[in-house]
């Protein structure tokens, strides 16, 4: 029965519920006016339970980005959120609020889900971690709370076995600084790490990341960043 309901119920992305009959034969099962007459919260509850609450929650993906002040960690988080939304999913990005100083360790968070995101707490058990600067490994426990089946993507020129990292999660390394020097001519790695994130996790599409980048960086800078992302995407296995 749940399956039938699931087929019938379609949740619009603006959070309001709509109803789609899966086939004319089934449409008698659900009447729009029946739902209309329910209270807003009862409706929400029915949708929630029919939609398979558990399943939905498990599809929530949490990302933590570590960087140093000035490395564009917050911008990277924003761009992931924009790209995920472009992919027709819901997203939320926010910095770990602090007194930002250039060079100081900073964090930014992203959530991606298939339904509107309500939770506002920080991310403690991420599915993915992105580390923009390998020197942070000496000062921050970047793998803190990382799920064992998660992934951590680190900008480094060292092989991953040389990194002192305590995690059961998959470790992915990329020499983003080198790519940045090749493509941008400056050691700014945030967009390159996005290319690596995109390939390693498949949580956002390359097209959407490219679109988000093109809207943020215009002209020559935009073109260079697109090339940087493409290079990173290709270098991640």
């Amino acid at each position: 029965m749940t399956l039938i309901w699931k087929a019938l119920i379609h949740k619009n992305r603006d959070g309001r519920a709509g109803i789609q009959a899966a086939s004319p034969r089934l449409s008698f099962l659900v009447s729009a006016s029946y739902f209309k007459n329910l209270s807003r919260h009862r409706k929400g509850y029915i949708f929630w339970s029919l939609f398979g609450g558990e399943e939905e929650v498990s599809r929530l993906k949490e990302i933590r980005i570590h960087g140093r002040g000035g490395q564009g960690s917050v911008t990277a988080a924003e761009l992931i959120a924009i790209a995920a939304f472009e992919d027709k999913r819901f997203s939320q990005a926010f910095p770990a609020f602090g007194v930002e100083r250039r060079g100081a360790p900073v964090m930014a968070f992203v959530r991606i889900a298939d339904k509107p995101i309500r939770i506002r707490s920080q991310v403690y058990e991420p599915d993915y971690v992105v580390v923009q600067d390998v020197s942070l490994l000496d000062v921050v426990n970047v793998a803190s709370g990382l799920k064992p089946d998660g992934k951590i993507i680190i900008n480094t020129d060292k092989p991953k076995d040389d990194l002192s990292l305590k995690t059961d999660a998959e470790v992915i390394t990329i020499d983003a600084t080198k790519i940045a020097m090749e493509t941008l001519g400056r050691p700014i790695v945030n967009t390159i790490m996005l290319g690596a994130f995109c390939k390693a996790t498949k949580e956002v599409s390359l097209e959407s990341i490219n679109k988000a980048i093109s809207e943020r960086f215009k002209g020559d800078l935009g073109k260079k960043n697109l090339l940087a992302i493409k290079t990173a995407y290709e270098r991640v296995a």
Partner: protein
Amino acid sequence: MMKVVEGSYAVAHAAMCCSPDVVSAYPITPQTHIVEHLSQMVADGELDAEFLTVDSEFSALSVLVGASAMGARCYSSTTSQGLALMYEVLYNVSGLRMPVVMTVANRALGAPLNIWNDQQDSVGARDVGWLQLYVENVQEAVDTTPQAYKIAEDMGILTPIMVCMDGFILTHVYEPVELLDKEKVAGFLPAFKPEYVLDPANPKTIGAFADPSTYTEFRYLQFDAQQKALAKIEAVAKEFQETFGRTFGGLIDTYQAEDAEIVLVTMGSVIGTIKDAIDEMRAEGIKVGLVKVRSYRPFPVQALRKALKDAGVIAVIEKDVSIGNEAGLVTDLKAAFYNSKIRTPIIGFTAGLGGRDITVKDIRKITEKASAARKGIESEFEFLDLRTEILP
């Protein structure tokens, strides 16, 4: 169309859609990007307004006293110490019955110096005569902005209003938001046409002296206007819903509260986390629900009595403390029930002070404590997650 934008931008855009004539702000810390974006909109010709940057928050609001007296629609935004520095002018704006709308990005007050989120700033200003609406997400902050003007500018109310949104948590988040359409807002919110304005051709005094024979009546009229605002806030939320298809409640809102034995009462952005926690606990059979206080001033006594009459126990969660006696929301709620037939136990928690994170686990802990309080209250009020190990 929905778009992923920063909370501050979304609110600036909403303020722009309300076509204010004058925007005045102190542009340096503590401030948010809200006025920065508005300044850009004025520079780009997107907003035809006088944008004034002044030397302090005291001046920022004082400028709006003058502008409002001339009949201008006024907007400002501030936070924490900035709101504190406005304190004297807050009373002048409300006492002069000027319908100024101000976004308060809720942040902690020093000392100790702290820049992070809590609601001490605006809850501490609950008695200054302004209406206060608290929002749970960026979309509600956007939608509440034109509603605020419509409520404030009602001729029977003429009272300034603070739209309170959690600093950082909502001002700095990027999330999908439906930005307002300026023309549609113009249809919803008619131009401001005040009855009394300063006009050299028709001189009058605004802000005259009131001696003991009339001062009480001025305060009574303000009090009465806030009572009238109770119905107006509901009506405007409803009208907004009819026009724009969205609502986040009028005076209050509820979530899973109908059959709830344990009801959590709160304001602001923690509501999102609470809703997730409620879903988790409901799946385990715990009958817990939420009553959101959207309007803190006026305090919706009747609406809260109605929404909470069947609760087995009530736990209030708030990001402020009334140093010397519990905290704002919990004392107001207890007072609202004292002369009613409701004898539900009420316990209060202050949480999230100075930016301390509130997690789903914290909400579960509060719910457990509330559940235990049904058998007898052990602690009427407490600081959640107090780090006793660092106390002297």
